[in-house]
């Protein structure tokens, strides 16, 4: 959409932008009224010899009005926000058919795991993490055999709910895709779900938006939003690659 906000590429984006511009209009009106008032008063009531200020300690009615208006506005804003919030982040907000992806963050890279053909993630343990096994897959779990692990690239199908399971190995990172308007901190010791529906095919960036150390500024990855056919082809290709060179 217009202005300085980035392009909209998820189903959340229009809603969040709508909210943003709605608040912009409310605050914009207030802003203009206040600033005009200040300039106008400064000019109209500037000190002149012989002028006497109007002696008053206040006006109850006026104060009640300008207490009530913001209060009502804020309550309405709160209700609307809360509706969207529970839809984006609520405990039970993730659609049942959402396509699961695990995203594992570490200083300073993103590791993305797909379930492979069986639709199940293999068990991961912190103890299994090593140079060759960056996400810590426990290979004794048969569900892990067809898991696909890729570095710094997230491929998602367009128009389909996707849920990312976010986990961190070391410090707090933040999963942030500006075009999706999605942001969720990735907290060590917690697995946090974030879902979204990508709506526009294309290539976007994941940026880490929580200070995570020296390489924070370059902790970025690509998001490829692909049509279902392209996505399936890519998955196929990755699965074959994984079969060709089994991880130790």
């Amino acid at each position, binding site marked *: 959409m217009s202005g300085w906000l980035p392009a909209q590429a998820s189903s959340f984006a229009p809603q969040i932008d709508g*909210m943003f511009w709605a608040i*912009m209009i409310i605050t914009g009106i*207030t802003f203009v009224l206040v600033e005009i008032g200040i300039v106008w008063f400064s000019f109209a009531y500037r000190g002149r010899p012989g002028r006497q200020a109007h002696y008053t300690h206040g006006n109850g009615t006026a104060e009640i009005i300008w207490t009530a208006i913001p209060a009502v506005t804020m309550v309405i804003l709160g209700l609307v*926000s809360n509706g969207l919030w529970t839809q984006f982040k609520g405990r039970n907000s993730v659609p049942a058919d959402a396509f699961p992806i695990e995203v594992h963050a570490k200083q300073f890279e993103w590791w993305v795991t797909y379930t492979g053909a069986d639709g199940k993630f293999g068990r991961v343990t912190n103890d299994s993490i090593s140079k060759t096994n960056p996400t810590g897959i426990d290979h004794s779990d048969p569900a892990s055999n067809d898991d696909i692990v890729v570095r710094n690239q997230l491929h998602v199908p367009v128009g389909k709910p996707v849920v990312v399971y976010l986990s961190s190995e070391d410090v707090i990172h933040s999963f942030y895709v500006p075009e999706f308007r999605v942001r969720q901190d990735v907290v060590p010791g917690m697995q946090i779900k974030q879902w979204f529906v990508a709506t526009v095919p294309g290539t976007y960036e994941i940026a880490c938006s929580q200070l995570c150390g020296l390489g924070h500024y370059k902790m970025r990855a690509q998001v490829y939003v692909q049509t279902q056919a392209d996505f399936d082809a890519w998955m196929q290709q990755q699965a074959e690659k994984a079969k060709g060179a089994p991880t130790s």
Partner: protein
Amino acid sequence: MSTAAATAHAGHAHHDDRSFVQKYLFSTDHKIIGIQFLFLSLFFLLIGAILSLQIRWQLAFPGQPMPGGKLLPESMAAGGVLLPEYYLQLVTMHGTFMVFFAIMLLLVGVYANFLIPLKIGAHDMAFPRINMASFWSAVVAGLVMLSSLFVTDGSPRAGWTMYVPLSARHDYSGASLGQELWSISIIFFGLSSVLGSLNYITTVINNRAPGMTWFRMPLSVWALFITAILGLLAVPVLAGAAIMLLFEQILGTHFFDPSAGGQVLLWQHLFWFFGHPEVYILILPAMGMVSELVANGSRKPIFGYHSMVFAICGIAFLGWIVWGHHMFVSGMNPTLGSSFMVTTLLIAVPSAIKVFNWMGTMWRGNLRFHTPMLWGIGFVAMFTIGGLSGIFMAATPVDMYIHDTYFIVAHIHYVLVGGSLFAIFGGIVFWYPKMFGRMMNETAGKVHFWLTLILYNCVFFPMHIIGMAGHMRRIYDPTIYDFLKPVQHWNVFISISAFLLFGTQIIFFLNFWLSMFWGKKAALNPWEDNGLEWSLPSPAPHGNWDTPPTVYRGPYEFSVPGASEDYIPQNKKLPTDREPALAPAHGD
């Protein structure tokens, strides 16, 4: 001995036989301590500003050698080009110095010390020696924090919020001693703050002059009183958190270590449970002072005095139950997020009351545009922007997008610079004659105001724009992101404005120091104000009053119809005034 009563009897208002050290160094006089705090905090303000300029250089011209960068050691700037590790130190120390040692000390250290006894008609603080201890522990805290810039592996680099585990584990952040010094410094800072706060609260409750009832107190005293309560109760939580962090760093405890069952979010809860009252510690005293400046400049009673007081109390109360809005996307329980959103939005109401009441004060006034009034009006105009931009991030869905972007940076700077710092500048000009007995130069003050106002908006307003574009905070090099390329020119614009803004402060710097020696001698009541402090000579003598003044009216009786002048000082007895009923002398 340290009770005010004892000080009163021993008050040597006119026979000051203390040695130089007692008088100016280890002084127990609240005015001297206030001025000591002023020098200390202005020093840290300067340090913080210099750090921010380096941040701005890097953001505008990443990878290019900084002018003067060669002076820095190779471990900070290789060949004059800032290194990422140094950049993170800059970001962290800028935040830490500005929040804790510049703005907070300027408001709570300087103005609370200097103004509370003068404005309520007390001889000194209730506990002058504790007050001195408060100052010197602030000095220790500041020096420890400063020293972290000079240790081998550098100062802390986990951001001023010190999120764990980055701050807790040296292998994550790359800094060891620096991180520990931060925790130690904050513990001393907490001590200083608690000692100061308990002094302010006791003084305001117990040592008011006869007739200075609660609702005759100037709004600045109200604000400082409520702020002291916030500081008293919030800062120990930070101290406790800093102790846990220190133990985590040196004893290997597991409070915040998820691999042993510790909780990462616990730090954020602790930090922001302190941190949000802290935000109001940083703005309430500024609001109080601006009320003084605007009422004086408008020559009108403050509009809705009582609702101003209740708004201060309301903000302070709500301030305790909103801390979660810093954590909307932190992985916190989303239901908790909803409740924090509601309380956060509600804070807009008392803030709006205050802005409208300041405008109501100007309405049909007889405005005098002296420099303090200009800063006061500037505060109202700028705080409005900062307050309104807060609504964006209070709304949780929008916060999901703008959290940790420059939109937040813009918001905090509109509140802390356009808000607090403007009020501080106004306050310095206004009470400068009371501190040093001379006036600051008005012309220089006005030039300083207008240049600062314009350049300040050039620096911080575009930050909203790059924030909308998604520009993250604390990144060393924005140019590597494709989505930030279209707004990089704003970064250049901001930085150049920032350099000019810093240059403008030279006017203030010169005005401040030169006026101390060559400024115009101050008249008894140069601003024709009603406050008790103007009934004393400038600078005020040790012990303030020989006999405490008696207060007959509220602090904002300007332009009373039929009065001979357009102001009536609080202690001026008119024939119609009755003597206030005194509290019994024997406490029973």
